[in-house]
């Protein structure tokens, strides 16, 4: 009988504790663009990864909140001395959401599919170094590279490198089946995507039972949605003029973080007179980065002096390479043979930072006699004219892929930049896995690009996150495009 009292007390405590801590387990997030489909291995749209990465799909490795490489489906790995063979030890007991087991065959299938002949992977380049993928046993995979690649483990953490199952790979666009802590519940096209907690997840259990990504195309609509409580988080949303209204409200947290988006004044390095270093240097001298950040990005964003993210460990501040100096700029133009300036064009894609930034850049250029005619283009048209056909002089765009300084070594890329010294740095970088050495090479590369004034380097695109002050665990920065919900919870 005596036992009853403590038991009843314990039960009472349990009940009251339970109700007092009946924390919310549902979250509605707003995002401006809808993913075209739900397969991260078949599209470049950031919205795909923003819903699915780490939540529904996982890769061998994963990228953490600070951009670090962490183990995911591979619990550990060893690298051969020549840097060409990676042996991955896989987690066991992992299941896909449809109940099928995850094993080494799925890894081989996914990697072979991504690099295959009819692959439609948007980042097929991540896999080109792979020579063979061998299944050693169900929990061991050996990947052999054609040549060492220092960034291989990082590459395997991209959303485009997630592991899919052969049974569901073809239908992932509609019904994504992954190994992550959340599974797809429903996709109401044009409206919202709902994820629910998956049973039997192998890793740390997640706190949220349900997460809904609601598509809100307009900033003017996102604010009332937030204020009315319909939506509790806007993890990456350009609110523009409406931001101060939310900033002053103690119910919400406004977190300004960094993305991997280098916003640049893209320059056609083969188009006269932009092919002359002195002309590009002159342009670099009239770029007033702070004015552009204030006018085109609401005052948020970090100035950059080369094509590299300030959030990265290997970053060097090169914004002082060509400081704002009109007299110097005019002098350089005169030396190049254009004392009165020249006429050029500036093709702008339909994003606010480009359209607004373009106005500012054009007015700065006018001060040294360069008349830049602004030509607004749609995205599809931009990709065709500027990116594919290289029919442009100047443009403004943000390169959002992480760690993508190697694009300057690509042959026939739309900057039309060609510098063997830079190519050599990237080549060496690919062969190096020693972190200290890699850092040094990255810094050399940044320096070359800044000195050559390949493009006008403007600023790093900010990640403006707004969410309920009671939400904990959303990413502050965006080292890759993702809304990792695995550690998100409501706190009192």
């Amino acid at each position, binding site marked *: 009988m005596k036992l009853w009292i403590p038991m009843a007390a314990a039960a009472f405590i349990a009940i009251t504790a339970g109700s007092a801590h009946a924390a919310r387990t549902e979250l509605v997030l707003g995002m401006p663009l*809808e993913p*075209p*489909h739900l397969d991260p291995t*078949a*599209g*470049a*749209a950031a919205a795909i990864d923003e819903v699915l990465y780490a939540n529904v799909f996982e890769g061998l490795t994963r990228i953490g909140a600070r951009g670090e490489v962490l183990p995911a489906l591979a619990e550990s790995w060893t690298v051969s001395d020549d840097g060409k063979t990676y042996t991955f030890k896989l987690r066991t007991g992992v299941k896909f959401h449809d109940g099928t087991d995850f094993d080494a065959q799925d890894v081989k299938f996914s990697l072979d599919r991504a690099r295959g*002949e*009819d*692959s*439609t*992977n*948007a*980042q*097929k*380049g991540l896999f080109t170094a792979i020579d063979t993928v061998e299944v050693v046993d169900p929990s061991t995979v050996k990947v052999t590279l054609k040549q060492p690649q220092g960034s291989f483990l990082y590459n395997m953490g991209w959303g485009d490198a997630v592991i899919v199952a052969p049974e569901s790979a073809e239908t992932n*666009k*509609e019904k994504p089946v992954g190994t992550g802590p959340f599974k797809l519940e429903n996709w*109401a*096209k*044009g*409206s*919202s995507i709902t994820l629910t907690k998956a049973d039997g997840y192998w890793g740390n259990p997640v706190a949220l039972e349900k997460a809904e990504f*609601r*598509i*809100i*195309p*307009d900033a*003017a*609509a996102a604010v*009332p*949605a937030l*204020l*009315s409580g*319909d939506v509790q988080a806007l993890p990456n949303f350009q609110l523009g003029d409406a931001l101060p209204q939310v900033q002053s409200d103690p119910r919400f947290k406004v977190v300004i973080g960094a993305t991997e988006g280098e916003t640049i004044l893209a320059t056609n390095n083969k188009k006269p007179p932009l092919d002359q270093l002195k002309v590009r240097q002159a342009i670099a001298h009239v770029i007033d980065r702070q004015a552009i950040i204030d006018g085109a990005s609401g005052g948020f964003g970090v100035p950059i002096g080369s094509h590299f993210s300030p959030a990265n460990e290997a970053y060097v501040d090169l914004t002082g390479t060509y400081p704002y100096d009109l007299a110097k700029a005019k002098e350089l133009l005169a030396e190049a043979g254009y004392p009165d300036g020249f006429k050029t064009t500036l093709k702008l894609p339909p994003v606010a930072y480009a359209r607004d930034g373009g106005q500012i850049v054009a007015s700065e250029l006018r001060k040294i006699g360069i008349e830049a005619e602004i030509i607004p283009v*749609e*995205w*599809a*048209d931009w*990709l*065709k*004219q500027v*990116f*594919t056909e290289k029919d442009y002089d100047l443009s403004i765009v943000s*390169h959002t*892929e992480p760690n*993508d300084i190697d*694009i300057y070594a690509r042959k026939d890329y739309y900057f039309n930049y060609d510098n063997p010294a830079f190519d050599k740095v990237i080549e060496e970088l690919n062969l190096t896995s020693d972190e200290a050495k890699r850092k040094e090479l990255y810094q050399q590369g940044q320096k070359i690009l800044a000195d050559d004034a390949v493009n006008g380097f403007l600023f790093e695109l900010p990640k403006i996150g707004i969410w309920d002050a009671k939400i904990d665990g959303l990413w502050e920065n965006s080292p890759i495009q993702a809304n990792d919900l695995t550690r998100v919870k409501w706190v009192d």
Partner: protein
Amino acid sequence: MSIYLIRRLASGLLTLVVASVVIFFVLEILPGDPARLMLGMNATEDAVQALRVQMGLDEGLYARYVQWACGLLSLDFGRSYTYSVPVAELIRERAAVSLPLALIALTLSTVIAIPVGLFAAARRGRMGDTMAMTVSQFGVAVPNFWFALMLVYVFSVWLRLVPAGGFPGWQSGIWPALKALILPALALALPQAAILARVTRSALLEVLGEDFIRTARAKGLTRKATLWRHALGNAMLPVLTILGLQFAFLLAGTVIIENVFYLPGLGRLLVQAINQRDLIVVEGVVMLLVAAVVLINLLVDLSYAFVDPRLRTRA
């Protein structure tokens, strides 16, 4: 009457055929490659080419037109490039929002506009008329997205009566779905009602100047009875024309309101498809709209015959 109907049907069909040719070939001229758009700037050329083959874009232009047009005959609109689901399915999902929204908005605007128009016409030049027309002038001039935002701030943020936006889907029940459509329907209906009220008023005034009205008054009918029995029916023609035009507009011209309330309607589907160069979706939606306009015009013409007996015999 039946010859008239057949002639109207034939000309409607011809319009559709011509429209399909124009829509298809004009859109194909648009610069941009849907495969490159999908895979982005970092994609290799062979991956883009593989996707182009998957989308069926490697076939010739004429072959694709014939394939598309033949599909239309059996109501097969093809497969979306970006969503990779049948276009017909996408349109059906979106029409489940846009069609009820347009109907509610149209009903609201008619219910508001006709009485206001009658009221103003009956009091021509007096205080009531001036006030009604001033208010309707405001209704025409106020941008509907601003009005929509005001509605959201009052009814969602402040009073919390209805959601600020979004659409839960009809499967969540009639009432939650209707609740999501109330504010957008109001925002759409008021400017339309303002226009309609003005049209109703001026049509009535024109009719009121006709000889038969004087005759009706001369034989002893009251002003009110004349208005209802003789004037209103005869003033319906321009009102019906405007109603038909408004309905066609409400079906897909509502993208601004759809954005403010983030509703998954036809207008947003269309704009999104244009941006993503999902041309087959654009073609399907535009074709459907053409068909809707043709049908609405046919119905409006038939209803002319209904309100005006002279048109029945003339054909």
